[in-house]
């Protein structure tokens, strides 16, 4: 199963193989996605050109949730089965998730001012999304708060698991309570409430951001593994 890939040496080999392809894929998808999002898609019948903010806002918000779920799953794997690579993944992913969350909050605010008439409201969706940002920041702070790296990693992993409760709250906040934020347009029972000409750039941007995330997370994991190897080699050199 995963154990075969949980070996750092094998990870390094697979990463070296995937990285160039994934980088090209990310750049290609984001360029084509941005072309469709900014130029080759129609304006909305209500929102006009402001709708283009959605092509960054929605994929960023999806990524914010996706990265958190991946981070929590890796934290569980680290806590329960003690996979060392799982912790390295979770710590590499956290700042990326925080950045996606911040991007979703900022672009949402820029859209909210002209459309709703306000930068920010304390409704259930916006508030739970802000809590997600704090969870990411808390995870990063906690993982670095101990002199003993292993203890910090474990405390942060517990926080990541506890914060998992916020994910369904974010997703269903627009259905459980009435909010100013609109309900889901793409992932809903009756099919997307979004025109195909607007769905295309949205999905391209979503795929592009996912590929971008994989590229950066692999780079960060590789850097962490290499720096650990350097530490070990230094220790060995000091002993002899």
């Amino acid at each position, binding site marked *: 199963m995963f154990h075969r890939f949980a070996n750092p040496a094998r990870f390094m080999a697979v990463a070296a193989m995937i990285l160039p392809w994934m980088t090209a894929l990310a750049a290609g998808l984001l360029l084509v996605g941005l072309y469709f999002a900014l130029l080759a898609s*129609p*304006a*909305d*019948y*209500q*929102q006009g050109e402001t*709708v283009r903010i*959605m092509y960054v806002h929605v994929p960023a918000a999806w990524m914010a949730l996706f990265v958190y779920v991946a981070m929590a799953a890796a934290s*569980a794997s680290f*806590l*329960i*089965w003690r996979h060392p690579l799982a912790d390295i993944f979770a710590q590499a992913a956290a700042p990326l998730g925080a950045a996606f969350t911040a991007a979703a909050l900022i672009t949402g605010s820029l859209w909210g001012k*002209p*459309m*709703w*008439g*306000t930068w920010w*409201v304390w*409704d*259930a969706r916006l508030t739970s999304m802000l809590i997600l940002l704090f969870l990411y920041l808390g995870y990063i702070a906690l993982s670095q708060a101990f002199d003993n790296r292993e203890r910090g990693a474990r405390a942060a992993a517990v926080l990541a*698991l*506890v914060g*998992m*409760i916020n994910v369904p*709250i974010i997703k269903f906040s627009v259905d*459980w*309570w*009435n*909010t*100013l934020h*609109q*309900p*889901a*347009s793409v992932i*809903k029972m009756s099919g997307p*409430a*979004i*025109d195909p*000409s*607007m769905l295309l750039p949205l999905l391209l941007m979503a795929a592009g951001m996912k590929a971008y995330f994989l590229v950066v997370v692999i780079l960060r994991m590789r850097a962490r593994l290499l720096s650990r190897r350097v530490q070990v080699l230094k220790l060995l050199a000091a002993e002899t």
Partner: protein
Amino acid sequence: MKAKRKRLLFALGGIGLLSLAVALVLSAFEENLVFFFSPSEIAAKAPPASQRIRLGGLVEEGSVQPTGEGLSVQFRVTDGASSLAVRFAGALPDLFREGQGVVAEGRVENGVFIASEVLAKHDENYMPAEVAEALKRSGNWQGGQGAEK
């Protein structure tokens, strides 16, 4: 029992209990978590004039008119079952139009909602103007369903 199995059960149990606690807290605070009340809910609650609340619903078709005092406008907000008159002096957001969802913040005075702020509520439908036109022409238009319920 193996240590791995023990840690797994501990994690699952902890998350289960925590979810239960959060679910109880959220259901207890239901009243405070909703962003706005519908005209029917406000009619049923009859809040005192001193209490600031938010009203949400659709702007009734043909109800928007100036009150004659400066920039102030008056319109009715409906949820299909019941409606409430709203008075507001200030700048309305871009998306404000008849049949569209709004959320107003203010107080109820003598059966009229005096709003200090009006926000537009956007619905989840995205389409180009030509598609919206075509839908209207073919009679398949379902617009103005912005606010739920």
